[in-house]
């Protein structure tokens, strides 16, 4: 079934790019994490009509994709979930807000159009920057960063377990659904009378799996807490990376850089 196969493939490509041995992958995870958060805050705090500033902030993902060599196409593919939602929310703005906003080559951009475009570009930029984070940071490093900002260990451990078992369970779900649909030709999904037994037996298998996992943990000295591995300290490289990129992002956010460049030429 394509939905599950697609999800498994998506996981795999992210994992592969996260485990590459490239300079971005070697940057300290906490640095990348903080930078991403800073960038996200900068983007979503831009005014709703502030198209130039949002466009200026696009320089960061552009530069990062250029420098890191991460697959841009894969990042675009991830937009498919967010964009429709953002569009639905923004699509009425041009209709409802017809105040003139700006005039370019005799064509009037209404405020509504400006806010819609700003919203869409914000949508794209936030997804791209999150992708840059996960596609360059292995999941174990990501969790180390989460521990460093004091997200409770229980949540981090549980996130790791979910990550470990989703592909297993997804392929199991896929097989179950395939086996069902092979015996129910012409059906689009699982019929109502089979909802309970199908999902219920999957749930019971998962519960059994959970207790086996628990036994396996206990046999190896688990007493309720997860031992943490060694966490690498941030080095000078990491610091330089953080300071320069953070400064760049803040610069783009605080000064309307594109407006300044534009007014040099357009007077």
């Amino acid at each position: 079934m394509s939905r599950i196969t697609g999800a498994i493939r998506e996981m795999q490509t992210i994992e592969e790019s996260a485990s590459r041995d490239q300079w971005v992958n070697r940057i300290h995870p906490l640095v990348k994490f903080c930078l991403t958060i800073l960038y996200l805050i900068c983007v979503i705090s831009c005014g709703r009509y502030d198209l130039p500033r949002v466009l200026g902030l696009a320089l960061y993902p552009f530069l990062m994709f250029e420098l890191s060599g991460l697959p841009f196409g894969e990042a675009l593919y991830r937009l498919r979930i967010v964009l429709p939602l953002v569009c639905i929310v923004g699509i009425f703005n041009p209709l409802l807000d017809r105040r003139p906003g700006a005039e370019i080559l005799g064509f009037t951009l209404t405020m509504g159009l400006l806010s819609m475009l700003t919203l869409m570009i914000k949508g794209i930029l936030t997804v791209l920057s999150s992708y840059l984070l996960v596609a360059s940071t292995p999941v174990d490093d990501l969790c180390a960063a989460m521990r460093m900002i004091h997200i409770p260990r229980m949540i981090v451990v549980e996130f790791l377990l979910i990550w470990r078992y989703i592909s297993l369970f997804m392929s199991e779900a896929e097989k179950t659904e395939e086996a069902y649909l092979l015996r129910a030709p012409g059906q689009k999904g699982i019929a109502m009378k089979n909802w309970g037994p199908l999902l219920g037996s999957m749930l019971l298998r998962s519960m059994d799996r959970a207790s086996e996992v628990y036994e396996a943990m206990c046999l190896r000295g688990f007493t309720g807490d997860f031992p943490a591995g060694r966490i690498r300290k941030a080095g000078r490289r990491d610091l330089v990376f953080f300071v320069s990129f953070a400064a760049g992002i803040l610069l783009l956010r605080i000064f309307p850089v594109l407006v300044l460049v534009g007014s040099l030429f357009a007077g």
Partner: protein
Amino acid sequence: MSHIHIEVKDLTFAYEKDRKILDGVTFTAREQDAIGIIGANGAGKSTLLKILVGLLLSFEGTVRVEEIPLEKRTLPRIREKIGYVFQDADSQLFSTSVYEDIAFGPRNYGLPEEEVDRRVRLALKKVSLEGFGKKPIHRLSGGEKKLVSIAAILSMTPDILLMDEPSAALDPRNRRNLIRVLNEFDHLKILTSHDLDFIWDTCSRVILLGEGRILYDGNPEGILRDKKTLEESGLELPLSLTPREERTPSGGQ
């Protein structure tokens, strides 16, 4: 060298009343033993292993591991001595990467990170999977998962190794690899299997379980050539020991 590692006396166990899975099982296992426990489905093989490692405590009779009686109080001490490899490697390996999983046990024992690292590397070397450390577990093949789950146990340097159906669903190459790893482990090991060829290749002693009782306990030759007893217990003569003229072509009954 031959002091007793495991001593089981009159072991009886039932999940539900009146349905005994094990019924008066008695045996002792020594340092150098490599014991294969065989029997049909439901004969109580896996249950026996789970009891030895303290996963099922509501049994009758006595079990002693290196002189320590098995009970709730002594579990932590006993589990440091026994390594148990699950039949389903996916249950045993719950970490995201190979390295993290093998390091889980040593870290739980509070070892310094240098020692943890040394043990992980050594364990990976023992199962010939050097360089696999960073691999995500869910990308490993079935055979690799099995070897990693053994490495995860070896990193805790157990005195005793228990394995439940180790050869299930392995391809020939991984199977050979597993046999080598097992034969290199020179302490007590106990494994259960339907796969009598595998038992033949790895074990020096065989215990046949049937309806919760020990039907045979002795050297492999004594039972693995005994077609009649094996068939009565729902097992078949190992292929390698079956005379050529009696072998049926595969798929033909």
